[in-house]
């Protein structure tokens, strides 16, 4: 009995430690005060400030664009890399895996600094100028995400029955068709989770962004693209955290919660659907 109570307490303690700061932040997003802790009556002012602040909205858009594009590129590169390495000789595969492992365990600052030096040094040799732009930021985030995509795709390839690919070839598929029609659908869950991980990594990355950012797409006049993490960092340097950030954090948190709940419900629904042999497949057939 005591043990049970202790166990319950432990779980609640951990949950409180994890979620209390967020809950406090959410609560104080509904009051217009400069500092957290001072309640100045309930209002949606911070939210209206948020959606009126061009600065924050631009940073948000920049962050999302970078996250999605870099995750897409990282997913393509990581997946192709995993497939290529998987079907290569053992020697090559080991070498590839070793090289892939380094960025994963390496300190981010090392990678950020190396990229920054590369973007400064290489173009200055050719154009006699330091080159940093949206593209360098994108490259930085792709380098960040691709190894994680590889790590997510690899186990799916290993789990796959190797005769599936052979069966496709045997039935007349060219190697590329077999890869597209059989291997890819099989490893798709791994590709998808790799993509999500790459997005997450990119969304809250600060170190690499700070070192690789340059003039961007949305804020053409600015000297550099400002992502959310860069923006917040800038604001903190000069004074208190802008109150509107509390509203933004709340919005992001709620969106994430919504996403997680959505995926869980979808999975539940899908497994239920699979249990009943579905008739819906008939329509899908011709489109294949």
């Amino acid at each position: 009995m005591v043990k049970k109570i202790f166990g319950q307490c432990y779980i609640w303690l951990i949950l409180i430690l994890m979620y209390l700061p967020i809950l406090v932040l959410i609560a104080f997003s509904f009051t217009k005060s400069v500092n957290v802790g001072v309640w100045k009556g309930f209002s949606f002012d911070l939210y209206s400030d948020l959606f009126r602040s061009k600065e924050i909205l631009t940073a948000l858009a920049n962050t999302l664009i970078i996250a999605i594009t870099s995750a897409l590129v990282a997913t393509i590169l990581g997946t192709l890399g995993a497939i290529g390495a998987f079907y290569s000789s053992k020697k090559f595969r080991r070498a590839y895996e070793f090289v892939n492992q380094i960025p994963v365990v390496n300190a981010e600052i090392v990678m950020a600094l190396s990229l920054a030096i590369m973007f400064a040094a290489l173009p200055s040799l050719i154009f006699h100028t330091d080159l940093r732009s949206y593209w360098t930021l994108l490259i930085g985030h792709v380098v960040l995400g691709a190894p994680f995509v590889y790590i997510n795709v690899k186990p799916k390839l290993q789990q796959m029955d190797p005769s599936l690919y052979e069966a496709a070839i045997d039935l007349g598929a060219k190697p590329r068709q077999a890869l597209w029609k059989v291997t890819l659908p099989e490893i798709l869950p791994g590709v998808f989770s790799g993509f999500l991980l790459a997005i997450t990594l990119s969304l809250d990355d600060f170190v690499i962004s700070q070192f690789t950012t340059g003039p961007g797409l949305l804020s053409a006049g600015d000297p550099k693209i400002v992502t959310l993490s860069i923006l917040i960092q800038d604001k903190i340097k000069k004074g208190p955290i802008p109150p509107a950030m509390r509203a933004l954090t709340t919005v992001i948190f709620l969106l994430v919660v919504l996403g997680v709940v959505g995926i869980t419900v979808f999975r539940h629904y899908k497994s239920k659907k699979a249990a009943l042999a579905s008739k819906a497949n008939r329509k899908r057939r011709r489109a294949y």
Partner: protein
Amino acid sequence: MSKENCIISLQGVNKVFDGTTVVDNFNLDITKGEFVTFLGPSGCGKTTTLRMIAGFETPTSGKILLNGEDITKIPPHKRPINTVFQRYALFPHLDVYDNVAFGLKLKKIPCEKKGKPAFRHLTAKEIDEKVAHALEIVDLDEFEDRDISTLSGGQQQRVAIARAIVNEPEILLLDEPLGALDLKMRKDMQIELKEMHKKLGITFIYVTHDQEEALTMSDTIVVMKSGEIQQVGTPIDIYNEPVNAFVADFIGESNIYNATMAGKLKVRFLNHVFDCIDDFPVNEKVDVVVRPEDVILTVVKEPSKDKVTGKIVTKVFKGVHYEYLVQVGKAEVECRDTKDRNVGDLVTVEVEPENIQIMKKDVTNNIYTEAWINNKNQVVIGEDPFDCDVTKLLKDSTLSEDGYLIGPDGKKYDLNDADVIAEIGLDKIEMIDGFDNGDTNGEIVSVVYKGDHYQVMVRTDDEEDFILDTPYTWNEGDQVSIKVLPQDIKLMLKGDIAKYEVE
């Protein structure tokens, strides 16, 4: 076999993996419409041969001809050959219909476009019809929309077959397709496959290690061992006239004895001279095969002088018949009989001359099929223990201090009483004058001069024969000891090592 009827021909095909020859000089012509089975124990190269026909492996040397055309280097997707895989290899993300239609959707057929020859895909209607027909053949008409994961093993098997035959291949390859099914399902599928073969008229090449499956279904059986063809023939030929002890042992139950030709059409085994119908030179060492159902037992009161007499030691009721084990001296005779007899009965053992199959003995090696490992990890041949290296039974294994075999993966095996086949080269046996100087002793029963050396046969007290090559002259009747170094005894485990695993 006439040339124009031959659909596929393997000519001197070799396959070497990392220095190991897996398929050795394989020559075979297969007639159109035949049901051919590659039969052999695991690791005999049968699957590799099949994979070379499918195109997944390229022969190290040799040629494969399809309808007279060399296809050795043609990739699998361009061969009119389809495969049914061991574990089905159905595409889990597609339903039954899409699995079966996979090959059809990729296929292009010749057509005419504005008077010029061109290629086009099959229309949805054509595909629908072909898929429906294929599913009908495998009795899965109503299953088109089902997900693969909702099917039973037997149904998945049928989908795999439908997926292959829907492409109307010239040859259908089946790689142990029934291995994952339970016994009853397997029996049903055997009959169905055979009927399908008749209906479709496609050439089937079937790979299995199950001799009963091979006998039931095949027109021709190819028995393989260590990458080499042992015998090619109809099931009846292979069963009744095996060419060597391996084939006889592998196909069906059999009594195999070392025998010597005692005269014209006379052969001596079980310490008795039997009449036979195979003509071999007198005094030649041969193997004799007698099928259990060909042994005639007669209950007698006392041992007969001019017939082999033995005692029934075990009796097993098998439904239609009884299975008896008769002890004759130190040898055992397995028999099948419908008559009820009792354990302990004295019986005479007779065999009709035409039921004694005599095979030329392979004298490149001494092979002992009845050997076993004792608790000191020695191999027992006849009744004599020989020191041997049991770690050779499992690659990269070691022996623990308490006598267990430790595999490379850390698994522990207790080999006590394990049945093995022991092989000793003719040049690996040392003969020493006098008794008790070696592992065992015996009497020289024959000395044959072979040009530059003598081939000597030593028979031990327990009737095991050791044949050895020696440069020196010895006399028949000499009492000698023989000695074999542990590393010169080659061992082969009967059955899988997994059954000797201990916790």
